[in-house]
């Protein structure tokens, strides 16, 4: 005896998902970190440039001007800081691009190294420019904010503590060990003249440290919220993707189930027609042919529905876009439609040049196949169809498909691309219309950023002009 237990409890999956979410909240993915490391490195080059300009200015002007501004006497510190930053920046690039990733060479460690080196350099700058005499200490806030964005709340707190310690040490050294810094007017404006420079420095230090902690708290809270939302978005996107795959499978299954019985019937009809089941009278053969035509049209409709469904769901998948030779696509369609053209004794005049367009090749094939077969369907026996390409300017091209068939009445023209649009005049000419051929064309055109122009005169014929923008003469 076989026994199977069925369970449709979804909570297990949800639990796993919320655990993942908790993990994702802690940190950003390595890809995001790496792209930001590159941005930091680029930003640091700009900063190095600014420091070089600063150094040149110092050399050009008398140092008195800077002392007056509250900047302490210049030594060789800018050169040393510039040297360290250049050397470190090169090391980060080497670690990121040229060394294999390992336990000791991860994006997180790279970022930590950058933050520590930057903080040390900034502390040197703060010390020499003036820890309490200029607002340069506020640059520490930048590092706290960035750490909050890229690290977990705990790690960014460590960075904040590090910043507080460095700032405190710098202020203490400046004001209590050497007492060399000329305290500027800046402080004196805000605090009473009677208070001693040391008291002011102490106040300034406490004020900055509190500010750093507040900034950490606010920014890390905000970044946590943003990160949670970002994760929800990514989750929702994944669910949509999964639902799309399931929907496609369902559509495929339904198509299969609907079409299979028709295929079985038509297979048997073919056996009789080809004489595998003995001789049949011409009346029977004729009746079988009529049955086959009806069954074939229904099969076509079922497949068209699946095609339409697929086109609708694939519209935003940019990964499928590739530079495609339009002539090759057209050639494929023409080859495919050859038997139908021959059966109506029609002539196809093709003069198309090679040009390339960024598109989804399968969809463009469906587009041309539908437009050309539409032209064939509504053409009269023995007429011709012209397919031609024209280059307009350097980057625009058109492909025109012209038939000499029944044409479209002006009142119907605006509706021809609508789903299931039914024109009695067209239906009289072609009893097997599924009515969705041109809606397929519309969606394929939309997905591939194409414009279509239709000119028609009843009784004379119709021209479909497909307009391609941004074409190239070579494969991109």
């Amino acid at each position, binding site marked *: 005896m076989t026994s199977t237990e069925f369970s449709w409890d979804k909570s297990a999956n949800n639990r796993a998902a919320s655990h993942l979410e908790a993990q994702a909240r802690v940190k950003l993915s390595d890809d995001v970190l790496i792209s930001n490391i590159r941005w930091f490195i680029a930003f640091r080059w700009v900063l190095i440039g600014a420091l070089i300009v600063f150094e040149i200015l110092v050399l050009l002007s008398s140092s008195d001007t800077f002392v007056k501004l509250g900047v302490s006497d210049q030594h060789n510190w800018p050169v040393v800081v510039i040297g360290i930053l250049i050397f470190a920046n090169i090391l980060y690039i080497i670690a990121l691009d040229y060394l294999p990733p390992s336990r000791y060479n991860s994006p997180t460690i790279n970022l930590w190294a950058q933050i520590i080196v930057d903080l040390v350099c900034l502390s040197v700058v703060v010390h020499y420019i003036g820890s309490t005499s200029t607002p340069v200490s506020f640059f520490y806030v930048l590092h706290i904010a960035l750490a909050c964005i890229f690290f977990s709340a705990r790690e960014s707190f460590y960075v904040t503590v590090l910043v507080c310690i460095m700032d405190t040490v710098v202020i203490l050294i400046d004001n209590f060990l050497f007492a060399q810094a000329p305290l500027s007017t800046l402080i004196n404006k805000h605090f009473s003249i009677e208070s001693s420079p040391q008291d002011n420095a102490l106040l300034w230090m406490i004020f900055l440290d509190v500010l750093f902690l507040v900034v950490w708290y606010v920014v890390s809270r905000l970044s946590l919220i943003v990160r949670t939302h970002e994760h929800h978005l990514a989750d929702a996107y994944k669910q949509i993707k999964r639902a799309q795959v399931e929907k496609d499978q369902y559509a495929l299954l339904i198509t299969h189930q609907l079409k299979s019985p028709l295929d079985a019937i038509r297979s048997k009809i073919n056996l009789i027609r080809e004489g*595998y089941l003995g001789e049949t009278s011409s009346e029977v053969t004729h009746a079988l042919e009529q049955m086959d035509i009806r069954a074939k049209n229904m099969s076509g409709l079922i497949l068209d529905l699946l095609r339409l469904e697929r086109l609708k769901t694939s519209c935003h998948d940019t990964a499928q876009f590739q530079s495609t030779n339009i002539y090759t696509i057209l050639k494929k369609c023409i080859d495919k439609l050859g038997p139908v053209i021959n059966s109506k004794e029609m002539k196809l005049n093709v003069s198309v040049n090679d040009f390339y367009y960024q598109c989804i090749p399968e969809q463009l094939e469906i587009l041309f196949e539908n437009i050309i077969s539409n032209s064939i369907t509504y053409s009269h026996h023995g007429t011709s169809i012209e397919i031609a390409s024209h280059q307009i300017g350097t980057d625009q091209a058109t492909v025109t498909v012209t038939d000499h068939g029944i044409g479209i009445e002006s009142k119907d023209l605006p509706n021809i691309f609508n789903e299931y649009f039914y024109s009695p005049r067209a239906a009289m000419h072609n009893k097997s219309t599924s009515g969705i051929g041109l809606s397929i064309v519309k969606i394929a055109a939309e997905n591939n950023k194409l414009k279509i122009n239709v000119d028609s005169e009843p009784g004379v014929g119709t021209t479909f002009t497909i307009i391609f923008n941004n074409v190239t003469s070579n494969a991109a």
Partner: protein
Amino acid sequence: MVLRIAHVDDDSDIRESVQLILKKDGYEVDSYLTMQDFLDSLKNNTIRPNLAILDVMVESMDSGLTTFANLHKNYPEMQAIFLTSLGDMIRPYFENQSHEWVCIMEKPVEPISLLATINARLKNKDGQIA
């Protein structure tokens, strides 16, 4: 030597039709209801077919595709074609470059084109051996 063809389809009408057409043309035909039956039969060397005609949706949505991959890996000398109601709609399930060598025929069974495709495939194979 009589060439042997295996046909896997869960639709008895299609199995009958294919069998009738191929037998009349001189082929030995083994029909299977499921891919598993067919794969089991391959263990017996004496009835290993020269060509396999596979439906796509048999036991599962993709059993035909996985069987095709299995044949390609384990029996590379065996030719295989798909005969499916879905026709070219199964193309997206193949890698970009396989368009040239994956042969997909859409149902219904059409005697002339079925025989033409099979003859061409088997002739190709003989050519390779020679």
